[in-house]
């Protein structure tokens, strides 16, 4: 087991971390399912007339172990991030990064098409693009 100091060596870093967590807890409109522990992974959602775009900020993960599922209009992103192995006789001065299992759940809008989903992992961001059903897309009707 690495040695962990009882008090954070850098009090300011600790205060910054607290502030970051407070911001994450209050600055955004909280979802009914809450935020993942330690804010991991953070999710940004955007929409276009043709698709719903989800950006999951999940750095340091083997993309093959990511589990993305859609069931009854609910999208789930789950996985596990393993802690970096600490060498023997090492002391951990700052320990803020999340490790362990995580799961985040997002309700998709009604017109999302679960059959047309694309997921890509790049630079630690999982980008999921869910197309909207063609029937729900705005259409111009020609007047006869």
């Amino acid at each position, binding site marked *: 087991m690495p040695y962990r100091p009882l008090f954070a060596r850098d009090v300011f870093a600790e205060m910054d971390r607290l502030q*970051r967590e407070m911001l994450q807890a209050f600055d955004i409109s909280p979802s009914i399912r809450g*935020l993942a522990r330690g804010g991991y992974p953070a999710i940004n959602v955007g929409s276009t*007339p043709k698709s719903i775009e989800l950006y999951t900020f999940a750095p340091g993960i083997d993309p093959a172990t990511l589990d993305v599922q859609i069931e009854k209009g609910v999208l789930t992103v789950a996985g596990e991030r393993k802690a970096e192995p600490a060498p023997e*006789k090492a002391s*951990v001065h700052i320990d803020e990064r999340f490790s362990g299992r995580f799961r985040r759940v997002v309700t998709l809008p009604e017109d999302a098409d679960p059959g047309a989903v694309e997921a890509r992992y790049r630079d630690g961001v999982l980008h999921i693009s869910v197309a909207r059903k063609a029937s729900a897309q705005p259409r111009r009707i020609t007047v006869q």
Partner: protein
Amino acid sequence: MNDTTKVARQAASAPVEAALLPAVDVIEDTGGITLYADLPGVPREKLNLHVEADTLTIEGEIAIPVPEGMEPTHVEVALPRYRRAFTLSKELDAGKVSAELNHGVLKLRIPKAEHAQPRRIQVAVG
């Protein structure tokens, strides 16, 4: 006196852009310090590491391709860049920092200078 005003003016003319504070782990062993920082969305070419005097600064800009006309509906990562600075102590060799960026995680290794490596001191019995 002159130097101080210069520094103050410089700081005023270049306002620092707001940035996110990335989560880090710092682990020290006998050979040096290993730092891990979470920088999701930062590609290699947008990562900027610099050491000035004894301050190590990590800066990265998020570059994610976004489809045209996208409206954000829920935002948890609200700024497009990360920044964090650390003060290095003098037994660390800032000239030998090595860095790796993999899947949005930066790994920095800062070795201790030769003279600061642990040495066993022989106790002479006389």
